[in-house]
């Protein structure tokens, strides 16, 4: 099995209909700064490559950058942190999406039931809370809506801390898109972790596609 870079993962899932946060790639620090200015601050800069699956653990993510200088500085450090085994790397600049609510969604191939779409409550407590539910892919829209209804934390999906309710249609689009991707036999699994809910809109701020 191999993983796709975040950039390639984003391209693949977005083409299928997953809402992802605004992003661009850059091959050096100056181009990263240009991209950041185009999309507006604050931004996130990450080191991106096929061999880099777990960026956070290695400190390869810089959050809340608010100026071109900050982006240039962070980008230079990240490029410097790349190791030989990382292979080809580039910089990924994306809009810094903030929201109190984080979800996780994905596609997994179950040995008994085949491809399944997952939706869960995300964030640092995700595994402890384990509020997750599954449907077998592909999903009809009704299946997607019922999958959303299955989450225990329904209050999290309603109006929350001054933010509007989660747009269930957008979330259903993302879930159906994940289900549709199951028809590609070269995809072993997909993680959208997290999906951050910003003003009611759930969008993936990271994506990881694993190839069979």
């Amino acid at each position, binding site marked *: 099995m191999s993983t796709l870079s975040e950039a390639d993962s984003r391209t693949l899932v977005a083409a299928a209909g997953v809402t992802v946060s605004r992003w661009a790639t850059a091959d050096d620090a100056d181009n990263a700064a240009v991209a950041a200015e185009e999309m507006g601050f604050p931004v996130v800069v990450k080191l991106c490559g096929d061999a880099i699956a777990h960026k956070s653990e290695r400190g390869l993510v810089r959050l809340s950058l608010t100026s071109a200088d900050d982006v240039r500085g962070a980008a230079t450090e990240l490029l410097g942190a790349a190791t030989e085994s990382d292979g080809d790397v580039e910089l990924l600049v994306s809009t810094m999406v903030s929201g109190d609510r984080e979800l996780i969604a*994905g596609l997994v191939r179950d040995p*008994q039931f085949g491809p399944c779409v997952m939706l869960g409550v995300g964030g640092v407590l995700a595994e402890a809370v*384990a509020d997750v539910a599954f*449907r077998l892919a592909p999903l009809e829209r009704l299946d997607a809506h019922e999958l959303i209804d299955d989450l225990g934390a329904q209050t999290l999906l309603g109006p929350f801390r001054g933010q509007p309710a989660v747009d269930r249609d957008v979330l259903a689009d993302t879930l159906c898109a994940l289900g549709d991707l199951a028809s590609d036999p070269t995809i072993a*699994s997909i993680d959208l972790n997290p999906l951050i809910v910003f003003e009611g809109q759930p969008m993936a701020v990271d994506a990881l596609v694993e190839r069979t």
Partner: protein
Amino acid sequence: MARDLTPLFEPRGVVVTGVSSHPGKFGFVTLHNLLSCGYQGEVFAVGRPDPEGTAATILSRPVLTSVDALPEGAAELLVVCTPVSANEQIIRTAAGRGIRAVFVAAGGYSEAGEEGAKAEARLVALADELGLVLAGPNGQGITSPPVDLCAQIVAPFPPRGRIGVASQSGNFVSAFQNYATQTGIGISRSVSAGNAAATSIADYLEWFADDPETNVGLCYLEGLTDGRDFFERVRAITPRMPVVVVKGGATSGGQRAAASHTGSLASDDRVFDGMARQAGMVRAMTIEAAFEAAATLATQPLPGGSSVVVLTTAGGWGVVAADAITAHRDLTLTTLPDDLLTAADAMLPPRWSRNNPVDLAGGETRETIPELLDMVAGHPGVDSVVQLGLGIQGNTAALTRNGPFHPDHGLERIVDFHERQERRYAEAAADASTTHDKPVLVASELAVTQPGNPMVAAVRSTDRLCYPSADRAVAALGHLVRYAAWRRARA
């Protein structure tokens, strides 16, 4: 197109092999059960009358020494209680005599190791070659109450009803049969699928869905060889027949990709649960809850929505039921509509709760409960009704009737009155349900503690389940409401 299992469940004539004079052996017991439960077809015993071969009959039946001796076309079902080594030849010969379905009760197949697995594979190939329905091996048998067929190595023979049971555990077939016997909510067909070598749970469910005797499928699953196939097939059934499932046994999910966070959260049970919901299956977590869900689906109309009103003769029951409904994600403890409140005010004593639960606070008169049941069930804002607190008068009547003063001191009359009232309440609940085409569930611990209580007995005589507690009624109703919503959404 479902496989035709008619020769298994409605055979013209049955043959049992492995019949010996030992009344503890499977062959003998199966023959006994076939002859004792009213089956009208011909029954043939094949085996050894006794070790010396002197007696020619068992249970007053002539015993054939070989299936060769079967009259051509006289029997369609062969129940195999002979050892593995003999069975292939027996089945081949029997097929030549007109047998169309085989239930292999005998063990020693795939459950017993490699040699057994090979014998099982040969059995499947043989059935394919001969065009036979093959059930089992290693199963307890089948029952088919509509034709009084009890072809199983165990008891009980359940009462006739609308629930079709297919189970990968024979013991749970018996458990469902025991609940059917206890509650009177009967069974249309039951099969212990055994190793399910050729005929799977999905095959049985598909046939049940087309079976005019069966309204609800009830199955116990332990392992699925092809989960995806099961999902697709059950999903095609559930729009016309509800299927209740209990799943036992967790299997290993450790082989999933380590790089995927999604994978680490994908326990077998969560995936199974999502699959069951997506397919419209009713998943129960215990055997008892599964039976009660199936019994509810078999005896109550599907509700049009989630709103529930609780009626109770006294406080505590209603409070606990209200808690259970409020905590249930598929049910709504509905606020009493204004017009219903006004109408109830005119009918009830001033101290009634004026809220849902509708608590009569002991203020009912002779007509109150039947009238209230009809009025509440008839209101368009109410989808389901749970009636609690019945049976008190019947309990009092029992103590009085068995006490030293009955029938003097005017006790005969009051006892009769109490008992008559209890029957009226139970009948009123069933009538309100039938008239308004809505679920009306009656719950009382007396269902278990005093099954002879006239209210409990009357609920039973209306072909409904008297639920043993408010919580269990609410749980069963929750399954009913969820299934109805699933079906509505896809109509």
